[in-house]
């Protein structure tokens, strides 16, 4: 009885927070879900998509009982086994990622509420009514003001604390429950990202309700180094926008070049289309060591932790602008501006300045004073050749390379005056600098690689934020029926096996009339390629969220708009209520929305968290080969797994035997394999025969293109009846099906997992 009372009180509190009395939709079963609330959904997913653990380390060294060896059947002193330890790591990674975005959102909110007050209205333009699909679905709140976003982010903060608590020694003992918690963290991450980006759009007046955002200059050759240059590094635009305001107000914007690396670059270009995007995270150290930046301003996430050392080496001035990364620098937030400028110019000191206005003024003044005193020239081929002659090809550089290539061979070729190999290798370089640190002869490898960097500039479309409701109305039917073959979200960081893979993937799928969505570092490198007509993918394809479109949603936190679009399809097109109704939304996306994420260069904990959030929502994710180091995938065993669904129309459970989507988190070793997995993971049980035939057409043709002729060996699993077979391959597929004794099966009218596992949600809830 006491328990019932407590639950009621808790529910009352939740209803108060989410303003349940405002009847925009009835409140569903899980507003503000806590750890156990979606656990049954998670367990159902994990039954088919079992965790696949690749331990990165055999030991546990979290507590003073350790180190504990967990190989074979050994358990740690606390009783933990190797699988549970991996799951704990996964949860910790997801929490790091989720915290980074949520704290970013929290900071931006504080900053903007200080500026505008909590009642500042959320208005995302005339084409976006469902402004916050994640907040509406997960939290159950329709946010109308910045103050409402605080309610959402406080919920995320609270859940993070509970999840982190579970990772302490002597807590959770089941890998499945740790996975459920990781999925919870991933879901929270998308709420945190959505809070951050909505706040930014509202507070900084970013483009919204528009597809055709400006094309931004991209590449380090786009940066006018004859001017004083201010470089932003990180993710949080609070300071970069203030710097632009300062330059505008003081008529300095024509005199000072503003550029950025990583997501702050994308954010800043949403604020001012004159800001330049240097490139992704992997180009950070190159650009800093080039010395082109007079002032470097760091904020948070994906910034080098040795930035003061690197800035000093390059003769650049550094200002750390956020408390997340202060580098041990003196906090000059309260100091006199002129005194800071004097010390930075004369004494070459770096400072932390947490007051954006002061940081902006200092940056502008310092850049203008020191720029004329600094040499900012690219290395010449002759100089590179001279520096390279010291290389004796010892191979130490290759041994420490995370991308496993032999830069020493490239340097040796430079010494002979041949620059072809190093130009090729520049595309493989992930920009960590470990090769140079390891070199026994102290060869400045990064400096030499300047000659390999293209001096070409490109274009990237400015991030446009949420997908418009009007677009969802247009594409909802063709996506769920399968006649738009899929939504391919090519997202995330720049730990690419080869940087050129991204533009190739974007081009391949846009050409095939998939909807291609990009974000973050992947959005930048998608633009670093031109076709025979000199066009980047942003100039070649329309910016609409429609077949054949290439859409840049923005930075990392804008990833929430991609998953948000999937929710919007369920809510706007299928008219399913979303408020506090996560299971229904996720079930719809899993079974009916042919979307796949591709995080080809995922490196950070944030990428792990974003991907895990996609997985809970029913969106599979393909990862590049490095991502095996994340320790965990979610894989099925094809037809051997449980592919039963409820046919909601007939109210009966059907064993489809169809592995769609086949995996939820999958690593491909090569681009070629990824090209084939992408169309396969867009297949959904809800596809109409026409839609399925279109999807299989792409699956087969890409398989033939990249896997060398023949049909995919699992094609029979995806053909339900003859009309599913694409016309162009009819004869070949029919012959194969006959050869293996394939039997037709009925498509499922309304496939859902609801009804196949214990849930508070009834089958009625998925019928629209």
């Amino acid at each position, binding site marked *: 009885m006491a328990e019932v009372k407590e639950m009621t009180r808790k529910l009352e509190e939740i209803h108060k927070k989410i303003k349940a009395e405002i009847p925009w939709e009835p409140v569903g079963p899980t507003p503000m879900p806590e750890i156990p609330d979606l656990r049954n959904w998670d367990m159902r997913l994990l039954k088919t998509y079992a965790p696949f653990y*690749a331990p990165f380390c055999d030991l546990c060294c979290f507590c003073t009982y350790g180190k504990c060896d967990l190989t074979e059947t050994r358990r740690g002193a606390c009783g933990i086994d190797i699988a549970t330890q991996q799951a704990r790591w996964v949860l910790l990674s997801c929490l790091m990622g989720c915290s980074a975005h949520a704290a970013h959102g929290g900071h931006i909110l504080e900053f903007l509420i200080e500026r505008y007050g909590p009642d500042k209205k959320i208005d995302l333009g005339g084409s976006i009514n469902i402004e916050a699909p994640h907040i509406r679905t997960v939290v159950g709140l329709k946010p109308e003001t910045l103050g409402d976003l605080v309610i959402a982010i406080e919920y995320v903060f609270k859940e993070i604390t509970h999840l982190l608590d579970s990772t302490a020694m002597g807590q959770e003992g089941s890998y499945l429950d740790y996975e459920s918690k990781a999925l919870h963290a991933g879901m929270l991450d998308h709420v945190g990202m959505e809070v951050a980006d909505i706040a930014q759009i509202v507070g900084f007046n970013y483009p919204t309700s528009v597809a055709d955002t400006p094309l931004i200059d991209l590449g380090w050759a786009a940066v006018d180094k004859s001017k004083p240059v201010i470089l932003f590094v990180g993710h949080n635009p609070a300071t970069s926008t203030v710097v632009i305001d300062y330059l505008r107000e003081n008529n300095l914007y024509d005199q000072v070049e503003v550029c950025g690396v990583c997501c702050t670059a994308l954010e800043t270009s949403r604020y001012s289309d004159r800001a330049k995007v240097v490139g992704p995270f992997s180009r950070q150290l190159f650009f800093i060591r080039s010395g082109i930046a007079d002032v470097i301003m760091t904020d948070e996430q994906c910034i080098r932790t040795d930035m003061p050392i690197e800035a000093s080496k390059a003769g650049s001035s550094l200002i750390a602008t956020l408390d997340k990364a202060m580098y041990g620098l003196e906090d000059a937030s309260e100091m006199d501006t002129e005194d800071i400028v004097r010390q930075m110019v004369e004494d070459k000191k770096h400072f932390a300045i947490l007051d954006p206005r002061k940081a902006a003024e200092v940056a502008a003044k310092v850049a203008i004073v020191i720029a004329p005193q600094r040499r900012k020239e690219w290395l010449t081929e002759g100089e590179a050749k001279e520096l390279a002659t010291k290389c004796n090809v010892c191979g130490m550089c290759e041994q420490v390379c995370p991308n496993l290539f032999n830069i020493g061979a490239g340097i040796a070729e430079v010494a002979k005056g041949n620059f072809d190999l190093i130009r090729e290798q520049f595309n493989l370089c992930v920009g960590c600098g470990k090769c140079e640190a390891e070199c026994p002869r102290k060869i400045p490898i990064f400096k030499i690689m300047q000659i390999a960097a293209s001096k070409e500039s490109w274009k990237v479309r400015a991030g446009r934020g949420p997908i418009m409701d009007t677009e969802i109305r247009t594409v909802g039917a063709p996506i769920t029926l399968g006649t738009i073959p899929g939504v391919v979200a090519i997202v995330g960081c720049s730990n690419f096996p080869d940087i050129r893979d991204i533009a190739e993937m974007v081009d391949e799928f846009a050409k095939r009339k998939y909807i291609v969505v990009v974000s973050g570092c992947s959005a930048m490198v998608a633009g670093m390629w031109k076709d025979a007509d000199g066009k980047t993918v942003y100039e070649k394809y329309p910016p609409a969220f429609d077949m054949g479109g290439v859409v840049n949603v923005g930075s990392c936190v804008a990833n929430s708009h991609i998953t948000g679009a999937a929710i919007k399809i369920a809510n706007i097109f299928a008219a399913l209520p979303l408020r506090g109704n996560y299971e229904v939304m996720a079930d719809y996306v899993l079974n009916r929305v042919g979307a796949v994420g591709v995080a080809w260069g995922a490196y950070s904990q944030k990428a792990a968290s974003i991907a895990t959030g996609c997985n809970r929502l029913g969106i599979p994710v393909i990862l590049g080969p490095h991502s*095996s180091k994340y320790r965990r995938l979610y894989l099925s065993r094809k037809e051997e797994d449980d592919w039963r669904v409820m046919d909601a129309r007939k109210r009966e459970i059907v064993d489809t035997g169809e592995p769609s989507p086949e995996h939820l988190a999958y690593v491909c*070793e090569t681009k070629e394999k990824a090209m084939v*997995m992408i169309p396969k993971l867009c297949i959904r049980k809800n596809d109409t025969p026409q839609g399925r035939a279109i999807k299989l057409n792409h699956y087969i043709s890409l398989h033939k293109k990249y896997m*060398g002729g023949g049909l995919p060996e699992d094609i029979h699993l995806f053909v339900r009846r003859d009309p599913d077979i694409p016309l162009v391959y009819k004869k070949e597929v029919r012959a194969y099906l006959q050869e293996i004794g394939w039997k037709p099966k009925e498509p499922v009218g309304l496939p859902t997992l609801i009804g196949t596992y214990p849930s508070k949600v009834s089958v009625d809830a998925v019928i629209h």
Partner: protein
Amino acid sequence: MSAVIPYHRVNVLTGIKSARLIEDAQEYADLIKKARRPLLVLGPLLLKWSLDGKLLIEYALEIAKAANIPTCATAQVRAKMAELGIKPDSFYDVVEIINALKDPNWRGVRKEGNHDLVLFFGIRSDLGEQGLSVLKHFAPHLKTMTLCKFYFPNANYSLPNFRKDEQWKAFLESLIDNLKKGE
């Protein structure tokens, strides 16, 4: 013996159980011959790497033929094999074959039961090492062996870090000769 450091430092072992380093091709051949149901997993680097102009895929296929080992083509290896007129016994990508191998009740690529020795050849070393880690921890029913020119700590049997390609070539040729002897 002090710990062997893998060539690619990202693969350095943080643990206790590490691969037995074997340099003798005869010993490798004996282990392969002793296996009842071996499997050779072919990775895409076999299409990229060559020794004296001979692609590594050709060495791999000679090993498979000499010891009658069924093959599993990962990534785009099947395309090259088709060019060479050879059909692999199975097609799985690397994480898929490892996922299947984990299951002691899996029937294997020839449906004769799960494999007892799995040879990996031509998979990028970081992904390969992670895959070997999966099997080390979760597949006690089988042994793993590598044929690439680097030391893989998570395997059961590994080659050393060959300093020169000639050493690797000599090993592979000797391995093929030794396997043929048992034909």
